[in-house]
């Protein structure tokens, strides 16, 4: 009897027919666009027609096949297991299989102990991810491959999650990086994701087999794997069909008549009901009324057909779109334009202007302003008068429609932005950081995956009877939820409506984190392209239980705000804007060139944009150095100061005859280096400290990381240990520490579980440690008297015995060094604070953990703050100025107690002193600390700003956020100044800031 193997994957359907001797008779491969059942039935009929009258034994595999197998009592075989069967049959000499599918990634280790790995809850680095990235770059995956083959350099792209990678790629695109390089970087990101996520400390070597769609169709992806793993992998014939083949090999049931089976499948109505939520509209009439009431919102502002008098141009270069428009002195709109930025906004803006000059040669543009991610490049390219923060642009626009607006929600392609407005000033800002779930591009990608354009797709949802309840979660998770709902019989309309609802829920509960939607505000303006989608708008109104205002021009509100801003800030409406005129535009040329900055250890990958051979704009820089500004301003940066203090302990002296002990410079060593260095130095050791963190250092240890969801600072530890191993130190000292120093600020003085016990993970997962002595015993510094006794126990078990007195002496010196270090930090912090008060400079307490001063971890946010004109302090420099106070959480971690104390300190200061909290992605404790820090600050009327950091280095979003913070602080300062009448003659904060932003021109 012939055997049929069916592989129902997350995006494709594959089928194989074998004869009795396992000869392959038939194979087929098709995308199923989530119409799994009808497609399967059709496929079965095709096969039945090919082999008329034959019954076959059937077996089903694949992530989406489980439900089908259950429903039709077909034998199910787990897909990884199926792959294994097929490999044993077809390529038995294989050591490791790497298989990438639509939404899954797998590694099978076949020799020396079989191990199977598959991606868990994260779909980063899979076919879906590559598709997503290709659509972001506006090409097909195959084109991506062609592009990648011509790459010159590789950018670092966060590889954990598609969402993160996206926020890395977007700025690169906006900054004008070469598409070839980005394409290749995407493939390297996939490789890194696969290795860090799945290898989990096991080496990938020997005969490698590449399977699955992406690895079959994209040779560049294969060579990226080869390159990173230093192997020559092999992609066999039938590489798409291994799962289906495995299923077919395993099929040993009685015969099925395929025609009958196909009919059964077509007739099937799913039994499980999916969870639904309230429908959006019950009938056309309700919808019509809804449309009518929203059209009212925009009356008073007309769209004009020809320019009248002085015109003002507004440009908004967002993450995925470009918006442009002009307005007259009354705010009437002319030529609104909205387009996807096709990864390069420059030609789009140029085209718009060319057309404008062509149609209206006499147009008088009095002023123009640009906002958004691409602000700097566009400002430089076209000589735009003003560059403004997005938040200001949106508020300016919203005010036009509702002067008393108190809440603005903008959902764009990739960002969600919310502003709360109090007393005419932006009071609070919420931006989605590292997560773009529920944004416009998500809806779009989903529509495309199901084979619709976005307009049709969202209309389908308007009258769906039972929208799928998808909750408010990560995009990747939403993918599987949708799949589950489809399995349970949800139609496209219900999914469309469900996605619209989830967009809203994400914004409300994940970004704004509001407990009760009713408290948002009374006069809400919603905008952004996503809100032009009536389904989303309706879902939002339903969720908050009140009507909101959606301007007719919701999609171009950023540009409108910029135009209005230009109008308000234009000194003389008769003058002409500095914008390139028709003549200049004709000669416009744009070239890009990538290079690596050698100004400092960061080695930033820079992109040089040249416009018409004259104007140059550099992107990708962390500091001002490559811009070669005439004179560097003096900065007051305590983070840098702390690093310079610690550098003194990194001399790595090598006195002959002494044993060398290695200290890894990560996690709590950032605080304790002075202590341990002095301790071991006094005891007569050479102390070798691992080098400063870098991407390269991280990659060196990447393959030994067992848990890919742990925070980046912990992951870096693997690289530091590896660096010490490479130095051949005699021993590595990395103790476990349940407890931290007790500073009497909290109820307990624990370390977080990761800081406390990471040495255990290192010990268990880094095999190379066998070549040295790894000391990871438990110790604590809080018990000063017990410390030497415990240390003696530990050291005596590794080294020749020494008297307790010697250790006590070293301990005294070590405690003294630690105290001196902390005292120095605090003294200098106090000095900076005095200077700031004298010079009226804004102060930011950059609060996180001690290891957040690592430039590889904070991505130079401290430097950015300095560039923006602020004095930067650290949390530990002010935490001692507050005595213990009650908090509404259990205050049990030393580092976090400092955080609360720092927040309390800031809360008691004037409006120019603010706090920015750094949160490492994956830090579970910060789910608790961030809420508490926020409430301490907000109780005092301060703004809470949180910046999530990970491997990513998307400074664009962070910059917008910080600039917005400064502009709010500015407003507040003004307000309090107007009340008290002080700070006369001081330049305004916003001016100081814009003056300090590198003009981005050389």
């Amino acid at each position, binding site marked *: 009897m012939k055997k049929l193997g069916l592989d129902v994957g997350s995006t494709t359907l594959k089928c194989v027919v074998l004869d009795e001797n396992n000869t392959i008779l038939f194979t087929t491969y098709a995308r199923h666009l989530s119409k799994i059942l009808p497609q399967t039935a059709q496929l079965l009929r095709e096969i039945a027609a090919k082999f008329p009258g034959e019954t076959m034994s059937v077996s089903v595999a694949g*992530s*989406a096949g*489980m*439900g089908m197998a259950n429903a039709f009592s077909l034998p*199910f075989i*787990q*897909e990884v*297991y199926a792959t294994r069967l097929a490999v044993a049959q077809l390529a038995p000499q294989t050591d490791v299989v790497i298989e990438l599918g639509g939404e899954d990634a797998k590694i099978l280790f076949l020799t020396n*102990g*079989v191990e199977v790995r598959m991606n*868990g*809850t994260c779909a980063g680095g899979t076919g879906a991810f590559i598709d997503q990235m290709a659509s972001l770059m506006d090409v097909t995956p195959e084109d991506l491959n062609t592009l990648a083959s011509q790459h010159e350099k590789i950018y670092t792209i966060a590889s954990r999650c598609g969402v993160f990678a996206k926020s890395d790629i977007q700025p690169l695109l906006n900054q004008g990086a070469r598409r070839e390089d980005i394409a290749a970087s995407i493939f390297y990101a996939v490789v890194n994701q696969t290795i860090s996520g799945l290898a*989990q400390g*096991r080496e990938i070597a020997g005969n490698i087999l590449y399977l699955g769609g992406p690895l079959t169709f994209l040779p560049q992806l294969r060579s990226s794997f080869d390159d990173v793993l230093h192997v020559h992998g092999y992609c066999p014939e039938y590489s798409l069909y291994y799962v289906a083949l495995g299923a077919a090999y395993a099929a040993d049931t009685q015969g099925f008549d395929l025609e009958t089976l196909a009919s059964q499948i077509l007739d099937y109505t799913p039994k499980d009901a999916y*969870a639904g939520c309230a429908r959006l509209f019950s009938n056309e009439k309700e919808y019509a009324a809804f449309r009518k009431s929203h059209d009212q919102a925009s009356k008073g502002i007309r769209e004009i057909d020809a320019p009248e008098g002085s015109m003002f141009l507004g440009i908004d270069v967002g993450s995925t779109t470009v918006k442009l428009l002009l307005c007259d002195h009354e705010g009437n709109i002319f030529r609104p334009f909205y387009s996807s930025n096709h990864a390069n906004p420059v030609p789009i803006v140029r085209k718009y202007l060319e057309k404008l000059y062509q149609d209206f040669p006499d147009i008088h543009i009095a002023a123009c302003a640009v906002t958004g991610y691409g602000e700097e490049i566009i400002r430089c390219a076209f000589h735009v008068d003003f560059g403004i923060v997005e938040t200001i642009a949106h508020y300016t626009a919203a005010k036009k429609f509702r002067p008393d607006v108190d809440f603005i929600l903008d959902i764009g392609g990739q960002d969600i932005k919310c502003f709360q407005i109090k007393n005419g000033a932006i009071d609070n800002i919420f931006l989605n950081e590292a997560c773009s779930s529920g944004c416009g591009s998500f809806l779009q990608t989903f529509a495309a995956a199901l084979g619709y354009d976005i307009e049709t797709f969202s209309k389908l949802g308007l009258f769906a009877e039972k929208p799928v309840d998808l*909750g*408010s*979660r990560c995009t990747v*998770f*939403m993918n*599987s*939820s949708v*799949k*589950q709902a489809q399995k349970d019989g949800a139609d496209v309309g219900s999914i469309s409506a469900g996605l619209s609802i989830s967009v809203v829920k994400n914004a409300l509960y*994940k970004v704004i984190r509001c*407990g*009760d939607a009713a408290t948002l505000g009374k006069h809400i303006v919603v905008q952004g392209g996503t809100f032009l989608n009536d389904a989303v708008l309706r879902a939002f109104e339903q969720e908050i239980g009140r009507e909101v205002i959606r301007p007719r021009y919701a999609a171009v509100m950023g540009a409108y705000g910029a135009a209005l801003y230009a109008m308000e800030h234009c000194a003389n409406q008769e003058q002409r804007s500095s914008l390139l005129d028709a003549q200049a535009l004709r000669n416009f040329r744009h070239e890009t060139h990538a290079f690596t900055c050698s100004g400092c250890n960061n080695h930033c990958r820079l992109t040089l944009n040249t416009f018409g051979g004259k104007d140059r704009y550099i992107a990708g820089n962390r500091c001002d150095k490559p811009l070669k500004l005439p004179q560097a301003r003096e900065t007051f940066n305590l983070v840098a100061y702390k690093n310079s203090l610690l550098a003194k302990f990194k001399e790595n002296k090598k006195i002959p005859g002494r044993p060398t002990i290695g200290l890894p410079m990560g996690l709590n060593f950032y605080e304790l280096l002075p202590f341990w260095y002095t301790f071991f130095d006094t005891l007569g050791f050479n102390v070798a400290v691992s080098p400063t963190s870098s991407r390269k250092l991280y990659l060196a240890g990447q393959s030994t990381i*067992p*848990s890919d*969801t742990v925070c980046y600072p*912990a992951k870096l530890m693997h690289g530091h240990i590896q660096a010490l191993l490479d130095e051949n130190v005699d021993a590595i000292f990395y103790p*476990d520490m*349940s*407890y931290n120093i007790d500073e009497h600020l909290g109820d*307990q003085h*624990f370390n977080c*579980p*990761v800081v*406390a*016990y990471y040495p*255990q*993970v290192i010990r*268990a*997962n880094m095999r190379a440690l066998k070549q040295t002595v790894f000391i990871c*015993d*438990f110790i604590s510094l*809080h*018990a000063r008297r*017990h410390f030497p*006794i*415990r240390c003696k126990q530990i050291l005596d078990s590794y080294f020749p015995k020494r008297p307790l007195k010697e250790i006590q002496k070293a301990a005294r010196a070590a405690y003294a060094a630690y105290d001196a270090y902390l005292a120095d930090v605090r003294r200098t912090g106090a000095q900076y604070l005095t200077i700031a008060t004298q010079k009226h400079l804004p102060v930011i307490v950059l609060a996180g953990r001690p290891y957040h001063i690592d430039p590889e971890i904070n991505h130079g946010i401290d430097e950015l703050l300095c560039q923006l004109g602020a004095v930067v302090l650290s949390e530990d420099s002010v935490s001692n100025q507050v005595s213990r106070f009650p908090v*509404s*959480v259990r205050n*049990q*971690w030393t580092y976090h107690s400092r955080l609360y104390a720092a927040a309390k300190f800031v809360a008691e200061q004037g409006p120019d002193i603010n706090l920015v909290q750094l949160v490492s992605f*994956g830090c*579970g404790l910060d*789910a*608790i600390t961030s*809420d508490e820090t926020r409430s301490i600050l907000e109780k005092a009327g301060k703004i809470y700003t949180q910046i999530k950091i990970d491997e990513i280095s998307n400074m664009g979003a962070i910059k917008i956020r910080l600039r917005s913070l400064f502009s709010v602080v500015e407003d507040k300062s003004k307000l309090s100044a107007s009340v008290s009448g002080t700070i006369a003659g001081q330049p305004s904060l916003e001016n100081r800031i814009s003056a300090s932003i590198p003009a981005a021109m050389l």
Partner: protein
Amino acid sequence: MPQDFTKEMKKTHTILCPDIFPTHMELLRGIFLMYGYRLDVLHYEGKQVIDTGLKYLHNDICYPAICSLGQQIYALQCGDYDVHKVALIMFQTGGGCRASNYIWLLRRALKNMGLDFVPVISISFSGLEHYSGFHLTPMMLLMGIRALVYGDMLLLLKNQCMPYEKTSGQAQALVQKWIQRLTDQFQHRRGLTNASMRKNLQEMVKEFHQIPKCSRSLIKVGIVGEIYVKYSSFGNNNLEKFLASQGCEYMIPGVLGFLQYCFANMDIDYRYYGGNRLIRTGGHIAEFMARKLEQAMLAALKPYPEFAAPAPFEKLKKLADTVIDRGVKMGEGWLLPGETAELIEKGYTNIICAQPFGCLPNHIVGKGVIRSLRLRYPHANIFPIDYDPGASRVNQENRIKLMLAIAREEQANHEKTRA
């Protein structure tokens, strides 16, 4: 100040408790009743409970918090209870994991809901709060622990009988019968002395032994992991039921082990960090008493070798030492690798490590030590499974199916070599 639980409330209020350990909670209810407190174990499940949790707690907080606190908040919202006639209760270890904050998160949620008049009782190792109407006496604590031991025994017996019973449902019925019987005994202040415990445990084992069983060759699965998702069917998407449907016999180590682990840590703290001798002595006494209970359990099981008995705790310590340092005491700490090693040695070589997505201690003691365990036990088939409000059940079950496919192959090979 948090709302007090007053003396009057003892009469008027029902204490609401999430179902952390399914069988055990019913027995604890009996103990509370014995001391005059009315305790309701909440069984709310489903998406609306999760959504309630997500709404009032931080989105990134641990999944167990979202489930268990979600149940309590949901209970206050769904209209089943008069909010002026209920109190909430939470059990905590007070360690360095963020779970120590549950009580605070719950109070904050209540405040945000305008329900801060609802008293929240905290039962924690890290120092007790004082309530005028609720006193956790050492005696009540001891009684509670004894009830947990009964729970452990019932769980152990049920799990080892159910897959093999000739008429399905008998083991479950027996569990129900015993819960009823023990609750009745507790009402009359019986069943909790050493002697009566011995008697009850012996009878229990005997009755389970008498359930007619057939011999089957099943895949043996050990479940370890974070304490909530390990036990709670709400937390782990009905893991046990799924395993049963796939033809597995599964073993979940008992709750007593977790308590013993907490007690043992007091001794280790003293050894590593010095400090208060009294605490260490307290830990020793508690360990001693727990050991007595453990011995009673083992003694009752001894005559029936058909039942795989849990290893004595002292052995667990030794096994843990081979994998990890016993200084790791946050979350499940060193207990988790210890239990895993013990299950593997006992023949439960297929291990599901159930953990909440992004659980900090589990980075260390879950995924962090799998490599060490594999080196030590090359035949072990260990799969970490993540649970999260967004994680789809299909994904989880697919992974488990993979584990089972490998297990079946291993079993077949094993039988072949034996033949």
